Every structure is written in C-alpha cells, then in structure tokens.
C-alpha cells in the first residue's frame, strides 16, 4: 500500500528531529562523555545552525557555492558528452570495444583521489583540475550506460525499424539514440552526484575556493563548527541539485513504463 505524501514527509522530518535531538543531548549533558570534549569533537547543533545562518547573512558563502556549482556543471556536461560519444562508438564498433575493454576497466578501477594531485599539477589550482576530476567520474557512468543502452535494444525492435525502411543514420537517430538516452537519464542522479563529488574532493585536496575548500579550511584550524556547517551547506546543495534533476528528467522519460497511476 502506498504511503501518503504527508505521512512520509512527517516521518522523514521525525528522523531529522531525532538526530538533532540526540546530537543536542550528548553535547549538552554528560551522558556519553564530558560535555567539553563532546563539544570539541561534535560542536552543537545550535552553533552549527547559527554558523550556517551567519555565513549566508554575511554573504561569504555565495562565492564558494557558485564555484562548486560551475565545476559541477562543467564536469557533468563534459563527462556526459564524452561518455555518450565514446559509448556510442564502442557499441557500434565491437572491435574497438574489445581492444579497449581491459583498459577501460583498469581506468575505472583507479580510485580518483589519487588523480587529484596530478590534475592539480596539470591543470593548476583553479577550477579545471576539479572539473577534470569530476569528468573522470561522470564519464564512466554515462559511458557504461550508453554502451549498455545501445547494445540492449531488443532485436525485434531493431528488425522492425529496418523493415520500416530506416537506413543506418535513421536507425541511429530513431532507435539507438533514444534507447541510449533513456539509460543516461536513468543514471542521471548518480552521474550528477558524482560530478559534485569530483568538484568537492578536488577542492578539498587543493584550491582557494569552493565548498570543499571551506570544509578543508575549517578542519585546518580545528573549527569543528565550521566543518559541520560546511557539510550542512554541502548536503543542502546536493539535495537542491538532485531536485532539479528530478524536475528535468520527468518529462523526458514519459514513455518509460513506470509506476502506473489510476484515479
């Protein structure tokens, strides 16, 4: 039985309230450990909220948000474009796919964190080293999905399209492209999420601006409240982007059999 929206939202808020209450209790009363030590490690929910507010009020945070946003968008657009083009190419050319298969796997297995210093060296400490870090994450997700999408078009749909008189170019446009796009969109949340991860990790490991930089700065001076405030802002940022993705993908996937609604 589906739960109503209101009830769901209520339960979700309840979880948040619970977490904050627990956090508040252990940092204000000595239930787990000494209050002073607890505050040093975990700050307090009140301080964190006040800090977040003051960051927005004094306006220092907007520049960092903007930088992270730009990096995220660039990483997504470049990574997705490369993923689509190369995914198509591999799917239509089995020889190419077979030759590059082990290398693609190797590259994908590499933890991207190790690339961050190299990228900083190659592309400098500005936004581009972060963008490319994000690209390495986004690319593989989109690439694998496009590859899969193109190869898994049902044989009979393909045969039918051919019988309807489509040539290779028309097949690409009317069959392969929509099939691949469907897979890209179904992984949109993941790939956009990874674009954020790439940007923030890159900033964290070396930069002069962005949300990752903010958190790193606060850590450097043991400003735990600042670290938590940075994380809260980051979470809000990710939720916002995820919400936008949901809005964008809805009209694009109407043809997909999803949950059937009756009235």
């Amino acid at each position, binding site marked *: 039985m589906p739960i109503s929206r209101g009830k769901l939202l209520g339960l979700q808020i309840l979880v948040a309230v619970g977490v904050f209450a627990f956090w508040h209790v252990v940092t204000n009363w000595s239930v787990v450990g000494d209050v002073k030590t607890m505050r040093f490690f975990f700050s307090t929910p009140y301080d964190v909220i006040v800090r977040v507010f003051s960051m927005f009020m004094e306006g220092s945070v907007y520049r960092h948000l903007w930088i992270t946003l730009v990096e995220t968008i660039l990483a997504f657009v470049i990574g997705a474009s490369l993923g689509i083009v190369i995914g198509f190419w591999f799917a239509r050319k089995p020889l190419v796919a077979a030759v590059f298969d082990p290398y693609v796997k190797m590259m994908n297995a590499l933890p991207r964190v190790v690339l961050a210093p190299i990228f900083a060296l190659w592309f400098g400490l500005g936004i581009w080293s972060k963008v490319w870090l994000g690209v390495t994450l986004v690319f593989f997700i989109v690439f694998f999905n496009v590859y899969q999408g193109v190869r898994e078009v049902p044989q*009979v*749909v393909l*045969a*039918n399209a051919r019988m*309807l*008189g489509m040539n290779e170019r028309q097949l690409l446009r009317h069959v392969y492209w929509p099939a691949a796009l469907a897979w890209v969109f179904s992984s949109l949340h993941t790939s956009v999420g990874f674009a954020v991860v790439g940007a923030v990790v890159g900033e964290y490991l070396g930069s002069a601006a962005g949300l990752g930089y903010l958190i790193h700065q606060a850590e450097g001076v043991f400003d735990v409240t600042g670290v938590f405030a940075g994380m809260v802002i980051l979470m809000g940022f990710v939720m916002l982007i995820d919400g936008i993705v949901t809005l964008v993908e809805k009209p694009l996937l109407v*043809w997909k059999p999803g949950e059937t609604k009756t009235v």
Partner: protein
Amino acid sequence: MSTAVHLKGVSVAYALAGGGKYEAVQPVDLSVRDGEFVALLGPTGCGKSTLLNIAAGLMAPSSGTCDIFGERLSGLNAKAGYLFQQDALMPWKTAEDNVAIGLEVAGASRREAHEKARAMLAKVGLSAFGDRYPHQLSGGQKKRVALAQVLVREPKILLMDEPFGPLDAQTRLIMSELLLDLWQQDRKAVMFVTHDLDEAIALSDRVVVMSAGPASRFIGEFTVHLPRPRDIAEVRAEPAFHRLHAEIWSCLRDEVRKTYGLPGKAGAEQGAV
C-alpha cells in the same frame, strides 16, 4: 500474374549455443503470386516465423533461395512490410509517431506522414490513442498499432505473423474484415501466419499446412474456392467452408498431437490449433 515470393528448396538449421545445430525446416518450396493471400498453418514451433524471416530477408536460408518478384533476395526485402509476432513498436515513440515514422524515413513530409498515420489509426479503431506510448496500450491495441504501422506504408508484400493473436473474438473479426477490405481494394501478396483454422480459410486463397518440428515440411496445400469478395461472418456458414475445415483439420490434428508427444488419434474432433 507474376510471382511475388518464391522460396526454392529453402531449409533452415539454427546454430545452437552448445555447438550443435537444430534443423528447423527441411527444404520446402513455396511461391506466392502477386495479389495472392496465402495462410501458413502449423503447430507451434514448426518454423512459420522462420519462413517469414527468410522472406523478409532478415535471415539467410541454410540452403535454397528466395526470389522476390523474380529477383534474388540478398539483404532486406524492401518490398515487404512485416508484422512481427512479438512486440516491435519503438517504446519511446507514441502510437502516431510509430505509424508515421515509416513514411517519414521514406521522405514524406512530417505533416503528410502524420495525416496518413492518423487516418490509418482511425481505421484500426485507435483514433483516440494516437498520443499514447506503447506501454500505455493493451496487447490488442499494440497489435493494431503495429498493423497500422505496416499497412500505412502500402508494401507490395505483406508478411503477417499471427497479427490477430492477442485480440478478442469480436475484434478479431473486425480486424480480419478490415484487412480483407484493404486487400480487396489493392491486392498485395500476403503470407499470413495463424493458429486459427477458421481465420485461415475465411481470409486466404490457399492454406499451406506444415508438419510438427524438428525438420518440418509442408504436408498439405489446400486451395480455398470460396467466392470473393467475402463476408467473413457469412462465409463460415457455407458448406464448402465446413468441408475444407474438416479436411485441413484432419491433416493438422496428428501434427499438433505430435508436438505435445501424444500418439496420433483417428476421429474427427474439430477445433483451432
């Protein structure tokens, strides 16, 4: 009249994943004249779809040849429209777009293609469903969209694989009448696969019966001498219809039983396959 489809000594053996092969169809000969309506009847798994695939040029025969209007077929059969047994609509296109696309890729303007598509959808009783996506249609509605998709292009040869399979009895009748109507106006060569003996007789000029697989072959060919134009509902009442029905059924019955590993049985039970 010229020969639209001519299968000469066509046999088909499928390569199996394990390395062996499955002999689906023994060498068979079949020719369909231009303007002739031929029904292909046989127990499940005997190779009816296989033969249509050969005629469509989607598959090369293991031996033998396929000529289309006197020309050796290699590659796709551009003169044929194929109504597949399985769902073959593009799920990302609406019903109307699915029907129009065949005209659009052939160079028709978008407007003209969509006008014709709407008209054809109306003929199959789906005018209100043009903007639906395939997953929002019932099995029978999907089949009718697929029918419209094939018919709208006015191919010279129609290959139809159980086009009315998932339809209810009444819709089946209406669709058969529509098909017959369209065919009467502009006689195309038709290869029509069905499991329904009544339908086969009522529609076609000739019924070809295949034996049970593996290595199936043609075991009977019956010419339908009922006058045209036919009224599908009325034609079933004619004595000639019943005689032919009994004749074909006795030919088919043992083959159907073989498919299920049952011994052949004398006696005149009647029914659909």
